[in-house]
């Protein structure tokens, strides 16, 4: 009996400690962020989170917004389905976030969007490119371009620059991002007069792709479009090379990670992908951002996700400033009215669909590095 009361007491102390730390004092403006800080797409989540963090720290050092400090509360969804709704619900109902930032993977942004929409909390996604994300409702925004644009850019690149007529498409059926990008690439490529000779699927996280790659090899394409994420793409490139497939692989912004180069090594050499920005581009905004980021994160070169994470936070706070209030309706209207906002990843205008209209760049893997190739305007 005695032991029982003791453990009960301990438990209640534990509970109060837990609820106690959730409420943030100080009366700052609370912005929630959900990101994949661990798990399969951790590189993306960490990059975008670091960009966001840098933006908030920069803003707070300059006096915050509306005379108040900005408080960034970050939750990890472990790159897992189902976890996002938990953490977003917590950020809104328990922590009182006035706006939400996140995430890179479209599947998980799609999980958060209905919750934000229902609670009337404006959400800005840094890098979810699937069109469905902002279709959820009028409180959902993004600072990146969308897959129809990215797919078309790659389709034109494959037709015009690579001069390919026959292309195989290899899609990750587990990811909304991959499926969306594949669809728009196919539409664009067929419109250009190209021919899709093989369509194969894989499941993100697979380790053996030889079955599908053998089928692709049999169809003798001029290029292979692989709109996957970097870990899978690296293994696909290695196994394609082993099977003697020598044609270029092409993909989207899901490729951009140092891990792609670390795992893929010489197997990813010479392949192409489209993304949001190039850290070696010559623009004063980019140079300043790269310098600040390197200083804050031990000389690490920011990738596109870091730049977009930075832009998403800066863009959101700019809207809070213009709205003159953190009230959700006013904030939403200010976000929707954004025009020609100068961001690191280019000029952002929000269209009627609440998507950012902006340009894309194409990079190539060369000598173990990402090399800037060309910019494609919207």
């Amino acid at each position, binding site marked *: 009996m005695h032991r029982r009361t003791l453990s009960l007491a301990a438990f209640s102390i534990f509970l109060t400690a837990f609820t106690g730390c959730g409420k943030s004092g100080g009366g700052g403006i609370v912005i929630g962020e959900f990101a994949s800080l661990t798990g399969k797409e951790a*590189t993306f989540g960490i990059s975008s989170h670091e960009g966001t963090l840098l933006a908030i720290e920069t803003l707070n050092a300059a006096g915050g917004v509306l005379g108040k400090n900005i408080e960034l509360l970050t939750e990890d969804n472990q790159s897992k389905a189902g976890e996002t709704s938990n953490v977003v619900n917590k950020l809104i109902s328990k922590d009182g976030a006035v706006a939400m930032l996140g995430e890179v993977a479209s599947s998980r942004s799609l999980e958060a969007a209905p919750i934000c929409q229902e609670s009337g909390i404006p959400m800005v996604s840094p890098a979810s490119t699937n069109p469905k994300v902002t279709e959820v409702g009028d409180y959902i925004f993004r600072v990146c371009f969308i897959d129809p644009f990215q797919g078309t850019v790659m389709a034109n690149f494959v037709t015009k620059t690579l001069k390919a007529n026959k292309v195989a498409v290899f899609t990750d059926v587990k990811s909304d991002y991959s499926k969306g990008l594949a669809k728009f690439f196919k539409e664009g490529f067929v419109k250009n007069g190209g021919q899709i000779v093989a369509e194969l699927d894989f*499941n993100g996280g697979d*380790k053996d792709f*030889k079955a599908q790659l053998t*089928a692709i090899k049999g169809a003798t394409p001029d290029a292979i479009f692989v709109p996957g994420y970097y*870990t899978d793409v690296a293994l696909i490139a290695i196994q394609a090379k*082993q099977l003697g497939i020598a044609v270029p692989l092409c993909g989207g912004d899901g490729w951009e990670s140092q891990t792609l180069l670390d795992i893929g*090594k010489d197997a990813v050499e010479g392949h192409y992908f489209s993304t949001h920005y190039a850290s070696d581009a010559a623009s004063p905004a980019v140079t300043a951002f790269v310098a600040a980021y390197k200083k804050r994160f031990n000389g690490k070169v920011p990738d596109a996700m870091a730049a977009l994470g930075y832009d998403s936070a800066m863009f959101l706070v700019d809207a809070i400033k213009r709205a003159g209030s953190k009230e959700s309706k006013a904030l939403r209207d200010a976000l929707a009215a954004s025009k020609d906002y100068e961001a690191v990843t280019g000029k952002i205008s929000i269209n009627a669909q609440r998507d950012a209209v902006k340009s894309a760049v194409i990079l190539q893997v060369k000598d173990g590095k990402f090399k800037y190739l060309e910019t494609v305007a919207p």
Partner: protein
Amino acid sequence: MDWLLQQLINGLALGSIYALIALGYTMVYGVLRFINFAHADVLMLGAYAAYFIAPAVSTVLPLPSLTGTLIIVLLSAMICAGIGMLIEILAYRPLRQRPRLTVLITAIGVSLFIEFTCQHKAVFGADTKPFPQLLPVHDFHLAGLVIGSNDLVVVVTTLLLLVGLWFIVQRTKMGTAMRAVSYNQQAAALMGININRIISFTFGLGSALAAIAGILYALKAPGIDPLMGVQPGLRAFIAAVLGGIGNLPGAALGGLLLGLLETFAGGISGLSNYRDGIAFAILILILLFKPAGLLGKATVEKV
């Protein structure tokens, strides 16, 4: 025709890995009658052990080389054998007299514990790490077919280990004791067999097998992460059931069959989406007609 043969090679290479993992599941089941779900995570730990040992070994023996790889594999297998025995002592031994379901659920708990501990930043971190190239790689080209040297290594290792295991279980004193424990623990104890030692040995052996499988798997797909064992572990478990759980050649056969089914289903344009669906549907059909698995003996449970 080339296409068919190439898929056959791909399937055999994949199936051999499943077979190797399935051997570990089936051996522990054979002795203790429970599925050690942490097996797949020991596999991951084996790959990580090699990942951390490789740089140290490469200062003495430059990699890629065969001797260097053998040393790395041996060390990793020993580390994992130790971990396997530790898991048994800490998690399963206290539950020896409890219902089997309790132990089974504990096994799932151990598996999740290892997975999520290893995902923590202070341990391995959740991101994918590039696995070093341990063996010299050569692709053999035969009339349009490609056979990777790593695939050959996997097939040969699986065969050797299958024969080795069979020898240990059937021909050594330890193996006789294992079989005795498997029939009846109490009776075996009365005959003077140290049950704890036998069970520890079984776990050690199974975990060493898992480590070898983990390294071979990482050589095939050189990106390792703390969840890398989950998917092949599940497949191998199914392979073990398909072959007749508790039966060593059955596990190997089940693994090969599953690898081939997956590969052929995955290589069909437009159907590759349903790869696992097709493979598992066929498995269900087989189990409908042979409920004890392909090589398993149907036993009547005495109540």
